[in-house]
């Protein structure tokens, strides 16, 4: 049991104590501050969280395989971060808005992003795979930390409009060194913006360990910005759900932002172009494998009367079907038309680009007679 930590205003803040509700071996840990937030999570609900994590793990592995087979140009695997992403995303309401980096495939999946939509960018077929307003997930952000400001601005606007919707900014431990993230924390605190800063501390920014970004727990930074900080076991889906719910509730009540540090681990490479063997050890990997987000939930379910073997089997079958769908979807993504390279640069007519487009169309048209497969300028 962990002592209650409340700041001067009575708000829950937990920058140093590790919030954990399910231990790596599947024991339910009591925490009076966070237990009430997941009191509704019965065995069926916990099974659903397990299902989510198992399916996204399988989809992620399939996408990695698709990259190895040349169907995708690149893939940034989420393996190891299933609990952090599912636990937080399942705390959201439909009218909340999510601003992610490039690794939050599980968050996108929870928000209804389909297989082809998920892979479009990584196949190189289009600049984005989905309409952000359909799923209320912004286009993935490659510039590290830039989306933290977008989430903050969205949240400021929501509050000004009298809405109780909230924004969530997903970013990693590396992003906490970026100016944009720090500036977002300043703005969010100053304007009491209803935003949750959800930092997945997966220990590595490509090859750089988190110790290079910070000499102390990242959650402790929150205090300097004047907001609660919660350090949570990011491999514990129940604890992540509880922490995100408290933060969203605070945001909806108009009390402003919260910083959550979800301590997790990137089990795979940074992207399929990376070789983590160059910078980390097998021992470290084994240590984190023992803290796997999925096995602990199965163990807890088994210990509390659920047929975990049957669940695991059923979910594996379902995940297999989802992976097959993903594999089938990748070839349905249309190759872009050559002249679409000029589309959507501007929302309104632009004389300069119209001329460039015209000239390139004429150039492509030269090949029409010689070779009908060139695509042409149509």
């Amino acid at each position, binding site marked *: 049991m962990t002592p209650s930590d409340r700041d001067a205003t009575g708000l829950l803040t937990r920058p140093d104590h590790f919030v954990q509700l399910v231990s790596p071996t599947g024991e339910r840990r009591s925490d009076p501050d966070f237990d009430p937030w997941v009191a509704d999570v019965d065995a069926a609900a916990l099974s659903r969280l397990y299902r989510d994590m198992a399916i996204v793990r399988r989809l992620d592995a399939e996408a990695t395989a698709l990259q190895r087979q040349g169907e995708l140009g690149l893939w940034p695997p989420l393996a190891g971060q299933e609990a952090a992403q599912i636990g937080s995303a399942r705390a959201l309401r439909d009218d909340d808005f999510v601003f992610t980096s490039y690794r939050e495939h599980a968050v996108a999946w929870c928000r209804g992003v389909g297989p082809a939509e998920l892979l479009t960018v990584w196949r190189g077929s289009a600049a984005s795979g989905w309409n952000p307003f359909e799923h209320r997930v912004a286009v993935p952000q490659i510039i590290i930390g*830039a989306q933290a400001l977008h989430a903050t*601005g969205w949240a400021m606007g929501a509050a000004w409009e009298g809405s109780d919707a909230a924004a969530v900014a997903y970013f990693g431990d590396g992003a906490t060194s970026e100016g944009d993230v720090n500036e977002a924390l300043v*703005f969010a605190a100053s304007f009491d913006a209803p935003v949750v800063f959800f930092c997945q501390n997966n220990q590595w920014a490509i090859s750089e360990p988190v110790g290079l970004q910070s000499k102390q727990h990242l959650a402790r930074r929150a205090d300097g910005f004047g907001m609660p900080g919660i350090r949570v076991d990011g491999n514990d889906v129940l604890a992540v759900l509880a922490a995100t719910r408290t933060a969203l509730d605070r945001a909806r009540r108009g009390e402003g932002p919260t910083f959550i540090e979800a301590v997790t681990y990137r089990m795979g490479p940074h992207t399929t172009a990376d070789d983590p063997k160059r910078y980390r050890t097998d021992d470290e990997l084994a240590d984190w494998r023992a803290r796997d987000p999925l096995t602990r939930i199965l163990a807890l379910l088994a210990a509390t009367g659920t047929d975990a073997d049957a669940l695991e089997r059923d979910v594996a079958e379902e995940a297999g079907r989802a992976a097959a769908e993903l594999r089938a979807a990748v070839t349905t993504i249309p190759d872009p038309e050559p002249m679409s390279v000029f589309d959507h*640069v501007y*929302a309104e007519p632009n004389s300069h680009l119209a001329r460039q487009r015209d000239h390139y169309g004429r150039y492509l048209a030269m090949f029409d007679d010689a070779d009908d497969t060139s695509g042409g300028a149509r």
Partner: protein
Amino acid sequence: MTTLTLGKAINEGLRRALTGDDKVVLLGEDIGELGGVFRVTDGLKAEFGAHRVVDTPLSEAGIVGTAVGLAYRGFRPVVEIQFDGFIYPGFDQIVAQVAKLHYRSRGNVRMPLTIRVPFGGGIGAAEHHSESPEAYFAHTAGLRVIACSNPADAYVMIQQAIASDDPVLFFEPKRRYHVKGEVDETASLADAKPMGVASVVASGTDVTLVTYGALVPTALDAAVAAADDDVSIEVIDLRSIAPVDYATVEASVRRTGRLVITHEAGQQGGVGAELAASITERCFEFLEAAPVRVTGHDIPYPPAKLERHHLPDLDRILDGVDRVLGRPNSLSGVEA
């Protein structure tokens, strides 16, 4: 018609935009209580409230980045960068986010931001307060870049920028904030000249002189001075730097055969370079001489006591006119 200063004309344009669309919000440093360091937003916070005219923390990336999020939410943000030289901390958000999000989202997310930038020198200011960074933004796909030169244009163009669904860098010639002119506040925006169209502000037959922003009045002075010398200069106020209204410039050069471009920004990779190259490509056979650029030097903006040796002025422009005409000039006899 009302007589307004250029700064007040922008103020009135902002007021009209705030009145006409409740999704228009102003963000910037010192723009609320103080009314901006140049008082361009004077009185707007009192009139529209702290959620429409927002004093922000001192962070240009923060101002632009939160404006991106507000645009995602359906707002139409108008951002003030306090001085030209302070825009660089916001550069990444402008070029990597604001400029690209419409493209990156395949047209789903619009970025109708207006980024107001008081620019240029001539006010004896401290360093970083007199710069002309427009070429960086003209080089960036997805942005529109415009500059006003007089109160009537300022009043209309700020409203056009705000109404545009594309992000607009709106450059304000700070040394002309106090210049007065007639503004028709009753005219409909729909009837106004589109913001991408240049203005021929003086007709002439011998030389086409192209500029924008604070140098437009100087160029007009040059045309008057040259007329005494029987040289007829056509002055074009570009108004839009990206895209450039080449139809207007080209039509003029086809008649005059000679092109001089002047701007405060340095020469290398500048707006003048792009104009000279494009006009040469488009109507080489009509040119009687190579285009001439009269620009700031390619130096960091100098101390106040040296800025008159940096900024193009009447005499330097006239020297450029002499060069394009092949008359005796400062470079006569110098190997090219």
